[in-house]
């Protein structure tokens, strides 16, 4: 199951990510969507330097 999740998880890494790949909505919405799709949510905790 983990492998299937891995294959369906978006793999664009933080360092090269553009604004378009981030989920647009709240975290609760992201989690709910992940649940319906059988996916995990990757949360990037970020701070401007």
């Amino acid at each position, binding site marked *: 199951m983990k492998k299937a999740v891995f294959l369906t998880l978006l793999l664009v890494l*933080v360092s090269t990510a553009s604004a378009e*790949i*981030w*989920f647009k909505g709240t*975290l609760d919405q992201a989690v709910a969507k992940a649940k319906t799709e059988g*996916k995990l949510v990757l*949360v*990037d*905790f970020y701070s401007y330097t």
Partner: protein
Amino acid sequence: MFRATLQEPAGRAVFDKFKINATPTMMLLDGGGAEVDWSVGYRPPGENVQKALDRMLSGTDTFQSLSAIYAKDPKDVATVFKLARKYGDRFDTAKADAMYREVMALDPDGRAGTFTHEGLKVTAPYAEFAEFAMARTAAEARPKPDPALMKAFLAKHPQSRLTKQAYDFMEGYYGSRGSKDEAAAFFAEYAAKFPADPMVLYGWLARVVRDKGPIDKAMELAAKIEEMTDFNPSPSVNQLLAQAYALKGDTAKVEEVYGPEFMKERVSGLAYSLIAYANYWIEQNANLESALAMIETALKLESDNISILLRAATAYAKTGKEDKALAIYGHAFAQKSWDDATLLWQYAGFWARQNKNLDDALAAAKRSVELLPGLNFLWGTLSLVYEKMQNYPEAIKAAEKALETAPEEAKANSQRTIDRLKEAQNKK
């Protein structure tokens, strides 16, 4: 993928919800919003981010899998320890310490197994690491760090492989806290334990400089550090030495250890290191882009250093960049060196070996023997240039002058050169 940005209100709320203490942190949540695992920090190269993600997705030793094992068997020391480390990774020291206390309660004699800390390159029993970790938390606590647990750790584990790290943390404390007498007692003990480490004395001296005394102690430490680091002085260390000598008002010594001449030598040393690096990788035929970049940097640092120019030109020639070699070590250089026989000899020899720029090499070689006609090796290089130009009559004439001016022990070699040139001339 969801991004929580600390500076945005919605992001701040997510930070608070998960009690995140550091960025970057990557966290995986499952469909129920529960934490699967996390990874804190970034260590180059970028591929390490993928590796961290792979580990989180693997299901092995994740927070979620460890928690499941713990729920079934809370007495498994290895699992409790790993959970403690998980909390420690995200700086949740309260939870980390609580689990470390469990480790120590479950395994007071440290027999349940060992842990290897890759970064520290140390292997020690779980219980010992747990005790060390808690002592470290206390020693780094804000606003009131406390070294007492670390002192107790050292007293209990005098032979621990974590001893050096324990003293390092205590140094962080006594570097700016505790009374002067307490600090002096600590550093004396630390220095006695690690007498060959100049950085231990450096920490001690830093504290003395901060306290502006005692001056005699500062001078004693400075002298020892200078002696121990003389083979490879460091600007950061020498800056502290300068501060120490300034305390005493010894301006001459301040200039000596940290003045313009000192820094010039560091810059020159760096330039040589960069060229050596470049030549090493050129020989390996790898990292060539980096090698060439380092040559450029060396030339910026020491644009008038002839030895650097020659080494850089050699490196350029080895990588087929004769145009770059000519740009730094070409006609302009020869003209500038027109009254220096040795420099012209070096220049001529270099281009003869490259079999390029031979007209200019010939002019330089002729000028060198004109300046110093009694040196055999100058004639030898003139001969070489003519040979490369396939002008054997002139090559032989120059080689005969080399023989004429050569010391006794070099004559046989000069004769062999003449014989070889005559043979080549006959074949032509």
